Structure formats: structure tokens, C-alpha cells
């Protein structure tokens, strides 16, 4: 019974199908085929979309998870120590336990300030040349190539180069200045490239308006282009500060590792945090609480770098709002 029914229905369906095929015009057939495919595409695309979204989400989650793992591990081991004023503002000890890291904190900031004071003017100057004055050609290609090569050189190589050139040959000795010069070379490519990006993002129409009013190229750069690019340039500079305070290899060879005095002159040696952490971990066993000190210092350094990155974002947004260069987005 039931088999017969099904057959009938099938027959019915087939008959209708055939009838439709026979009497529909070419346009109707095309419309039907296209509609069928659109339907199928819609289903497939939606499924693929979901799958791809899930996959990218998973990858992003892994990246975020690793970051979270690092942050949590470091903070779990050292944040308690780092947030203790006696540790942060305390004097380091040579052989006793209970020493602090204040001279290292000061050294890091001193080194960062010195480096920024050199790398920003040079980097921005080079970027202005590249984006505003140079005609695209062999020279600009060479400069860009040089910057790319320079930025892929490992920092330890810069450290050794800095030691040979600044510490020994120029006789600066282990000093903040030798370190700052080395770090200037290390950070120049990135500062230059981020500044160049920021300058290129300034609309051509601003430059045209200024030039059409009778401004020279330099006046245009000074009064219109640089102010408009300031948010981007500032972000680059703040990120450079993050890299400077986090740099160890280049600093170990040029500034110092176990100096316990707060540096006054840039010609004095010092022990910026990252270098001091390395030293304390590898050779710090003279003080019994070396592990506590290194962990606390690492936690503070991480906190500082995170704050700098966050600060760079906020600063960019605030500056962009003020100058009105970025409207609405980000």
C-alpha cells in the first residue's frame, strides 16, 4: 500500500518536473537555475563563514592566551614584590638580602630619555626627507633598504658594535651615553618608518592648500604636515620607549649590569632594569633573595611596558581628536 503511494507521489513529482521543464521559457529556466544556486551559495557561504570565523577566533584566542599566560606567570611571581614601595624605591644590596631596584628604574628612564632625545629628531628628520622632499628613486630605495636591513639586525650585534665603537673606540666607556647612541641606531629604522607612515597619511590636499597660499615646502611641513602627523609620530616614539626599557642585549654591552648607584651624568655607567634582571638571574647568587629581586623587577618592567603601549594608544586617540586628523574611526 504505502509503496504504491510513494510511487504515485514520485510519479506526480516527476510529471510536474517534466511538465515544468517543457513549458518554461529559457528566461524562466535561467531564473530558476540561478535562484537555486543563490540559495545553495547562501547556505554554503554562511557555513563557511561560521567555520572561518571560528578558526580565526581560535587562532586569536591562542595568541591572547599565550600573552595572558606570560603576564599571569610573571605577575604571579613578582607583582607582590614589585608593588612594594620598599622594593621599588629601595637601595640594591651587594651581599645582604632585601635590596631594592630604584637605581635601575631611574637608569632605564634616563637611558630612554637620552635615546628618545636623539632618535626622534633624527628619525623624524629622515622621515620628513623621505616623504616630503625626496623624489622616489635610487636614493629613497637605498635608504628604505638600509632601514629594513638595520631593523633585522639582532640587538646583540648592535650591542657588540656599540661596545666597539662608542665604549672602546670613542672612549665613552660603559655609560648611559654609549648605550643611548647604540639604542638610537637600533630604534632609528622603526622610528623613521612609523614617522614616514604618519607623514604619508596626511592628506595631499592639506599640502596643496598650503602651497597654493604661497607657503614654501618647509613652511608647509612645519605648519601643516608635522602637526597633522604628530599623533602617529608620538605613538612611534612611545612604542620606542617601550622597546628601549625592555632591551637587554644591546644594553649589557654598552651601559652596564651591576652598578648600584643612581647615575647622574650620562657618562656614568648604570644598570637599566632589563640588563639588571639578566645579570641577577645569571650571576646574582651573591644575594640569597636574587630570585625575588629578579621576579619583582621583571613584573615591574612588564607592567611598565604594558602601560606604555596602552598609553601610546590613548595618547594617539587624544591627539587625533584634538587635531581632528582622525575623524570617528579607531
Amino acid at each position, binding site marked *: 500500500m504505502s509503496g504504491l503511494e510513494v510511487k504515485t507521489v514520485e510519479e506526480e513529482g516527476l510529471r510536474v518536473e517534466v511538465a515544468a521543464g517543457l513549458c518554461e521559457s529559457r528566461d524562466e529556466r535561467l531564473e530558476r537555475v540561478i535562484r537555486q544556486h543563490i540559495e545553495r551559495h547562501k547556505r554554503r557561504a554562511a557555513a563557511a563563514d561560521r567555520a572561518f570565523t571560528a578558526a580565526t577566533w581560535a587562532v586569536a584566542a591562542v595568541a591572547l592566551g599565550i600573552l595572558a599566560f606570560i603576564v599571569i606567570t610573571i605577575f604571579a611571581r613578582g607583582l607582590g614584590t614589585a608593588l612594594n614601595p620598599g622594593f621599588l624605591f629601595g637601595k640594591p644590596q651587594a651581599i645582604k638580602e632585601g635590596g631594592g631596584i630604584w637605581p635601575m628604574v631611574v637608569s632605564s628612564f634616563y637611558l630612554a630619555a637620552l635615546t628618545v632625545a636623539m632618535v626622534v629628531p633624527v628619525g623624524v628628520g629622515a622621515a620628513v626627507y623621505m616623504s616630503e622632499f625626496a623624489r622616489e628613486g635610487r636614493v629613497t630605495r637605498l635608504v628604505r633598504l638600509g632601514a629594513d636591513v638595520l631593523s633585522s639586525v639582532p640587538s646583540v650585534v648592535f650591542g657588540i658594535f656599540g661596545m666597539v665603537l662608542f665604549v672602546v673606540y670613542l672612549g665613552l666607556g660603559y655609560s648611559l651615553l654609549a648605550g643611548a647612541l647604540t639604542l638610537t641606531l637600533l630604534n632609528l629604522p622603526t622610528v623613521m618608518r612609523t614617522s614616514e607612515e604618519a607623514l604619508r597619511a596626511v592628506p595631499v590636499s*592639506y599640502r596643496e*592648500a598650503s602651497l597654493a*597660499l*604661497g607657503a614654501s615646502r618647509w613652511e608647509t611641513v612645519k605648519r601643516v604636515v608635522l602637526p597633522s602627523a604628530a599623533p602617529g609620530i608620538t605613538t612611534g616614539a612611545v612604542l620606542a620607549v617601550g622597546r628601549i626599557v625592555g632591551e637587554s642585549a644591546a644594553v649589557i654591552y654598552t651601559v652596564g649590569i651591576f652598578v648600584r648607584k643612581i647615575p647622574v651624568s650620562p657618562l656614568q655607567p648604570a644598570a637599566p632594569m632589563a640588563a639588571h634582571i639578566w645579570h641577577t638571574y645569571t650571576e646574582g647568587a651573591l644575594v640569597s633573595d636574587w630570585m625575588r629581586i629578579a621576579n619583582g623587577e621583571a613584573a615591574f618592567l612588564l607592567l611598565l611596558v604594558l602601560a606604555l603601549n596602552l598609553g601610546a594608544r590613548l595618547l594617539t586617540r587624544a591627539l587625533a581628536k584634538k587635531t581632528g586628523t582622525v*575623524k570617528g574611526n579607531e
Partner: protein
Amino acid sequence: MTEVACGACGKFELEGVNLYYNGFKALEGIDLRIERCSITALIGPSGCGKSSALRCLNRMNDLIPGARVEGLVSLDGEDVYQRGYDVVELRKRVGMVFQKPNPFPKSVYENVAYGPRLFGIKDKETLDDIVESSLVSAALWDEVKGKLKSSALALSGGQQQRLCIARVLAVQPEVILLDEPCSALDPIATQRIEDLLVELKSRYTIVIVTHNMQQAARVSDYTAFFMIEQQGDPGRVIEYDTTNAIFTNPKDERTERYITGRFG
């Protein structure tokens, strides 16, 4: 030199001007006399070189690598392309308003004061006076007098374009070039700009590029019709005459076809 009330207006003459972008010839044999204290419209289909011709007048083409001008472009009898000619001075005398309103991301006040500050005016009262009188001339003062310190980017498109005109007026040019100044504006804003131009022509020589023929007919005294024969050819001036003659009695058949809307 006998034109009415117009000692300071500038007069341009172009003779046999060719413009090249690298190997590409964009303009050929342009001859134009741009009269003092009048409005000259450059019209023609897209890509016919009318904007390029305009940019020859204040040497904005210099900014494009590979651009080269042949022939004579003279302002009050002086070749502006001669060796040693002061381009900065030229651009001070010949102001320009662009297609898209391009105020600086600064306050309304600072936009207008940009030129005067550039030339070293620091006195607050003088700057205030310049800003006010330029904004009055650009028919914008009443709308912005209460918000001189707020960002120019907050103004409407039409206001921004009038601000750009005020910014040009503040350096007291002799000639004002406008490159399709209304193409990004609505009809009401467009009409305000047109009224303003008619008012300004007693004091300035005005050259306007427009793809809107009605606009050319409404505001201009002289009209030059540009065209390219076919893709890749240089732009040429097909006909140049009083606007009245161009629109009522064109001599060239191509001009007639264009203004009656049969191509372009």
C-alpha cells in the same frame, strides 16, 4: 589699464602653451587671454585638460613629477615660467580653491590667519581684522563669528568651501583660481558660492573650472571650451569667447554639440 575700479587685478595671457606629463601631452597650443576683473570659465568634458590648464597658472603642476610646460604663461606681462621666477610670490598673487573643500585641521580662525601668519603678521589686532574682513567678503562671517575657535572640520561642506575662499582672500591675491569648487556641494551651497563669485569679480580676476554648463552660463563673462579629439590626444581650446557668444551663438559645431548636451 583703464578698467573700472580694478588696479590690482591681474591679467593672464597664455600663448601656445603645451603641457606634458612625462611623455604624455596633456595640453596643446593653448591660447587664452584672461581679462582683469571678470570671471572666465573653463568648460569641457572630463579629462579634457581644463584643470591642468588652470594649474599652469599658479604653477601647481610643478608638484607633479615629470610635468613640463612649454609656451608662454604671463601674469601682467611677466613670464611666470622664466628662470628665477618666485613661485611662492606667484601663488600669493594667484590664490586657488580646490574641488574638495580642504580646510586645515585647525580652527576657523587659524585657517584664515594661515596666510597672513606665514608672511609674518603677528599682531593680534591686525590678524583679527584680516580674519573678520576675509570672512565677511566670503559671506561666512555671520555664520561663524561665534565659533572662530572651533574646528573648521566641523563646518558644513558649503561653509568649508567659503572658508577656503576666505583663506585665499586673506592673502589679498589678484587672481583667484577655482577648480570645480561646487562639485562636492548641494545646490543651495552652490548658489551661495556663485553669488559670492559674482560679487568678488569687481575686485579679483576669477578663473573657474566647471563641468556644469549652467554654472558657467550663470556666473562667467568669458568661456573657454576645452576638448580632446580622442583618448590619448592632448586637450585643446576649441573656442574662446564671451560667455554670451559661446552659449547663444557658438562658432564651432563641437562647442554647439557640447553646450546643447549632445556629448560629453
